[in-house]
């Protein structure tokens, strides 16, 4: 069974899919269209459900095999994408739209088999800009990351409607960060991944910003200013290693 999920930016599409996945027997397949080099949603899905297969640039043939084996397939459409996907033509699928009451125009009603209440979106699609950057290998100074996100979501670098990202911290943890204009606060969720404590993490991290009048150069610079140097990363990792060996063998700690 193919389930196609669509909705405005920040409606809660990935979150809804994660809820579905949590309720069903594994395995399953997840496909996010348009994520390209910044697969934030796919990374979030795998971290939560490692058994879920992520189909990204994989032959259609393999997908058909899963379909034949009755593996549930979740297809997440990007908000900026057309809802016509060639692969889906002539294949039975269930269309789910996540749309807030205020955003429900005839288009959504017509397209979807099922309309579920999503987060309200005030994004003007005509003016919307998308800025995204892979950050793989970058590790953030935590207070700088906080400050950058507060400024970014507070409108210091243009009108920001949505921020999502995956960020690596020096203690080895990776966090999924989620902000939607109109919803309270910035959500930080630790990803269920091994703590990376040797060198720069060799796994995906990245950021995506949606809004209008975005000062993309300044955003990029501020993000860069919060990234730690090789030396700083090594220093932190050494400290955490010492801390852990202390916990295992609590002899003493030293003041350095």
């Amino acid at each position, binding site marked *: 069974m193919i389930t196609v999920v669509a909705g405005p930016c920040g409606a809660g599409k990935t979150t809804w899919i994660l809820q579905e996945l949590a309720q069903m027997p594994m395995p399953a397949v997840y496909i996010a269209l348009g994520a390209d080099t910044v697969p934030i949603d796919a990374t979030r899905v795998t971290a939560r459900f490692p058994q879920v297969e992520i189909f990204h640039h994989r032959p259609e043939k393999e997908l058909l095999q899963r379909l034949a084996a009755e593996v549930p397939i979740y297809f997440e459409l990007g908000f900026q994408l057309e809802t016509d996907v060639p692969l889906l033509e002539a294949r039975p699928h269930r269309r789910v739209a996540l749309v807030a009451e205020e955003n429900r125009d005839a288009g959504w009603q017509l397209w979807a088999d099922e309309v579920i209440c999503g987060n309200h979106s005030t994004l003007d699609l005509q003016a919307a800009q998308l800025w995204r950057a892979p950050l793989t290998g970058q590790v953030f100074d935590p207070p700088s990351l906080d400050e950058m996100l507060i400024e970014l979501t507070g409108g210091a670098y243009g009108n920001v409607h949505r921020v999502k990202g995956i960020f690596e911290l020096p203690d080895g943890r990776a966090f999924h960060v989620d902000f939607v204009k109109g919803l309270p606060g910035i959500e930080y969720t630790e990803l269920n991944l091994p703590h990376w404590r040797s060198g720069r993490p060799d796994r995906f991290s990245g950021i995506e910003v949606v809004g209008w009048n975005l000062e993309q150069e300044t955003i990029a610079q501020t993000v860069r200013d919060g990234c730690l140097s090789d030396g700083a990363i090594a220093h932190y990792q050494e400290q955490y290693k010492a801390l852990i060996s202390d916990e295992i063998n609590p002899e*003493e*700690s*030293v*003041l350095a």
Partner: protein
Amino acid sequence: MQWAILSGIEGNLAAYEAVLQDIRQQRSPVTALYALGDVIGLKGDNEAVIRRLQSPRPGELDPQVCIGWWEEQCFSLHGLSGLPDAPELMAQFGGDGVKQLWESVSRESVRWLRSLHFGFHELDCLLIHGSTVSYADELTPGTPAIQLCDRLLRADANTLFCGRSGQTFHLKIPEGAVTSTVTTLDAAAQTMTQTVRDRQIVGVGSVGKEPGKATYTLYSPYTNAVSFRTVRYGTQGKGFGAV
């Protein structure tokens, strides 16, 4: 299990040997040995003491050594930290003192001293030469009570062992309280009372400062018992004995 905590060898090898002998003779075995700085000084053989600390004999404890006032003077002379040319040393011991310290510690030993820590956090104790404020912070029973309390809070420890004063003392703060009322632009006055309970500062004594008499401290972390040892020693066959 108990710890032996000492400070201020000041290059006095005979005094340090006497203390080691006294430690060996303890009925309840000493399981850890801390030297809270000032292993070097002007009066003895700094190199010999450093070698002794670096290479304990078979069966001896490996001393855990931290930096003291004298080591900091040495670093300053070598341009390794703080102000250059050791102005504190100059002020207290003059040009001769500076020359003597410079000549009595080899570059290799300076490097070793530089690799030492500023102090040790162990269980709920901080072991340090002065305090977390500075290596030169001299705490004594005469230090204002609130300042002692502040040093304990900064140490983030229930027990603070220090050696700067060279004195042996056991100072307890069984209790204390202060009421604080804060008013801000956006909030009316809020009052809270803060208390402090059962903290202590221990002056661990001095091994090498006074010729013929070394003092150090024994501590049992599980019973929280502090005891001071005075070790008389001499060079003419008087033998060692604790008083």
